């Protein structure tokens, strides 16, 4: 092969070596296309209902609720914590010359409240008369009750501010002195936890029957409730001292949360889990997960968007949940700061979490509040994947979501949500669909 031919082949293979590339260039109008259309529709009406649980587990509590409030929609909600105390953390040695002074009970609050905090409540510290024990299926429930001794160990009338950090309630001296003597004598009832549990069954806190003003959140971590014995020594010099009996955070710590729904749309004279359609309850549905009221949404008319002459593909599904305008305020009946959704169906079981668009993180929604007119306050969820699943699968007419609030820490916030028949405060399923003409 001569030089000319070599040159030719070098050019040839350089030429063939041209690599290809293509970049996007934003040019021209969107091509004429009569086959695909993106359409927004809001005609699929979510069917709302309220599922009121017969009971729900509240054992192994890490936070407590205490108090009582009267809700214009949901009746009276009462909350009482039950928990055990334990022996002092360190070995206690009290000289025989030491003198008992007083006893008190210290409660630490977690700054949560719901209701009217401008009024006083009387808080009672009660010693349990019976040991706390599981009632069913190794669990404790909101309806569980453990009897307390007739006379309270102590009480205090107090006006709690949201900023209040702790409450100290003076206990009667007889119980305090009894405990002091056992400590001084190093009685087995205050030296070992088993002995102590046999001797002192636990504590429940309550408020006066007529105090229907507010419910407060208490810190349920171990040691945040304290029964304290004050005493003093005289030898070798006068010195004030105390011993703590701290609270335990264990499986037996639970909240009793009971409701009296007499006179409300959710009242039922029979026991068992009940479901109230929103049409039965003045075109509204209720959510107060902490008190066992679950708002349910299903979409029985969803499949109506499918037509035979077009391919219909869901692009986006948003759930707009609107509270009734006068049902909330910024202080007494605050809207829940955050909701999440779980999947459910006709059995009303609480299923999997509804995740965000990445399908890896729990999706939560905070309220967008219309501070001026109060007409356009809503929670918004992107439920595209889930609605698409309901759309393409069979037997999903009774499938939907529960609207729930975080229970850690335990809360009893509530919201009154309008159904699709509400003129101004309707809950909507907004769909964006791609239709393709066949």
């Amino acid at each position, binding site marked *: 092969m001569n030089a000319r031919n070599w040159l030719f082949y070098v050019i*040839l293979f350089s030429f063939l070596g041209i690599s290809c*590339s293509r*970049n996007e260039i934003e040019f021209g109008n969107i091509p004429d296309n009569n086959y695909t*259309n993106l359409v927004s529709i809001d005609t699929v009406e979510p069917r709302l209902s309220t599922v009121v649980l017969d009971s729900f587990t509240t054992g192994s509590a890490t936070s407590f609720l205490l108090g009582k409030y009267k809700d214009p929609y949901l009746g009276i909600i009462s909350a009482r914590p039950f928990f055990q105390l334990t022996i002092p953390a360190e070995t206690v040695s009290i000289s025989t010359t030491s003198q008992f002074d007083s006893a008190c009970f210290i409660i630490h609050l977690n700054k949560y409240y719901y209701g009217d905090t401008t009024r006083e409540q009387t808080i009672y510290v009660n010693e349990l008369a019976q040991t706390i024990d599981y009632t069913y299926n190794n669990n404790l429930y909101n309806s569980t009750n453990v009897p307390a001794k007739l006379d309270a160990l102590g009480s205090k009338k107090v006006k709690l501010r949201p900023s209040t950090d702790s409450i100290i309630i003076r206990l009667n001296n007889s119980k305090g002195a009894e405990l002091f003597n056992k400590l001084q004598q190093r009685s087995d009832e205050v030296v070992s936890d088993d002995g102590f549990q046999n001797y002192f069954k636990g504590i429940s806190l309550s408020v006066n029957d007529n105090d229907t003003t507010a419910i407060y959140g208490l810190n349920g971590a171990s040691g945040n409730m304290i029964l304290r014995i004050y005493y003093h020594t005289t030898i070798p010099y006068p010195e004030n001292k105390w011993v703590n009996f701290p609270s335990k955070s264990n499986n037996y710590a639970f909240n009793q949360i009971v409701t009296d729904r007499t006179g409300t749309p959710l009242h039922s004279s029979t026991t068992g889990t009940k479901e109230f359609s929103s049409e039965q309850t003045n075109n509204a549905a209720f959510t107060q997960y902490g008190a066992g009221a679950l708002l349910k949404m299903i979409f029985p008319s969803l499949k109506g968007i499918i037509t035979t002459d077009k391919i219909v593909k869901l692009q986006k599904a948003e759930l707009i949940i609107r509270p009734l305008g006068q049902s909330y305020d910024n202080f007494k009946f605050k809207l829940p700061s955050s909701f999440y959704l779980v999947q459910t169906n006709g059995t009303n079981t609480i299923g999997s979490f509804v995740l965000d668009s990445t399908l890896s993180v729990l999706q939560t929604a905070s309220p967008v509040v219309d501070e001026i007119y109060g007409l356009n306050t809503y929670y918004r969820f992107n439920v595209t994947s889930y609605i698409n699943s309901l759309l393409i699968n069979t037997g999903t007419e009774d499938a939907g979501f529960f609207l729930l609030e975080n229970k850690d820490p335990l809360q009893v916030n509530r919201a009154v949500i309008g159904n699709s028949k509400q003129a101004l405060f309707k809950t909507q399923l907004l769909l964006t669909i791609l239709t393709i003409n066949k």
Partner: protein
Amino acid sequence: MIGKNIYTIMLVSGFVSIKSFSQNMNSPYSIYGIGDIDNRIYNRTSGMGGTGLATQSSSYFINNNPAAISGLPRSFYLLSVSATGKTLQYYGDAINETNRKNKDLWLKGLTLAVKINKFWASSIGFKQFSNVNYKFSGNKNVLGSNEIYYAIYEGNGGLNDYYWTNAFSVGKHFSFGIKSSIIAGSINQTETIVNDAATSSIETKQQDYFGSPKFEFGAIYSVALNKKWDFSLGGKFIEKTRLGSERTLTVTENGAAILNDNFIKNDRFYLPRTYGMGITLTHNKKTSFAADYTYENWSPLNIKGDGWSLINSNRISAGIEIAKHIDVLGQKVEKNYFQFGGFISNSYLRVNNMPVNEFGITAGMGGRLNSNLLYTLSLEGGKRGTTKADLIKENFLQLTLSLTYRDFLFSKGRKYD
């Protein structure tokens, strides 16, 4: 030697074909009509701005005019392949450094030509007729809401010209030819929309399948003006041509078909009545001067869309070729040649009331690699479009390679006159 030459042609064809399947050059103007209609010439005349309506060759396949193949020597066959590599830079409002440069490679044509007898030459082959290749994103409005959705639009495909050309000599000075073609291929436009959860990507692919006959007529008159000068006059004519098409729709979701090649409708596109005329003057059989003019009568077809229309187009080209010859067994045989040329065209496309004009200058060379294998290399640089009226200007550089294998039609041992 024969096997080696054929192998070279097959290698080039195969390699370029494979690369052509993955065509990636974004051609924004190909969104209109049936894509970028390729009026360029990919043969020996490429280096002269594609000028050759009145040009014939005894060694190379020239198809500017259907009558041109009548100039081939009797009882020879020619196998010719052409490919083009192009680099391009875009300018305009829609262009930034990330999308300014493009390059690609195409197989532009493959031909087998035979001079069957003293009067009749015939060729079959194909060439790229139009090319569609664009990609851009756009906002699609949601009916009943103020929302807009991000959609990606891609176009690809194009039409090929599968032809059978027959040329006939009438006397020593005149020849005429007819090129009978089937213009066939598909033009595909895909819209991709991804749903809000990014879990579903729906592709709606609209495919227009074309397949229609087209006829091109040409004639060349050649005469020796004197001992030094030869003159040729050529012309071609194409009647208005209806390209029927069938449109289908294919819808896939995440790659799985929902609707597969569903027939939608029959449609049509028209190619315009076309006239072309050219002259070639050759001095001492070495130096040729050529000029062409072609007119396409698009306007009466009333083909238009949103912001664009097809308008009458004119193309003028001219070039010069200088050939070197050597003596082989007492006969003058062309050793190689060098060419220069250029063209200017106000194209058939008008966008935003602005014609998409084009011009280019060319240079070429060619010769023999051995006794049977001929090559042609041409380089073209030019500009198309404008940055006015939100349009895009393309500055391009294009290298075209044509290989021609030439041999006796029949077996060895026979004598031919």
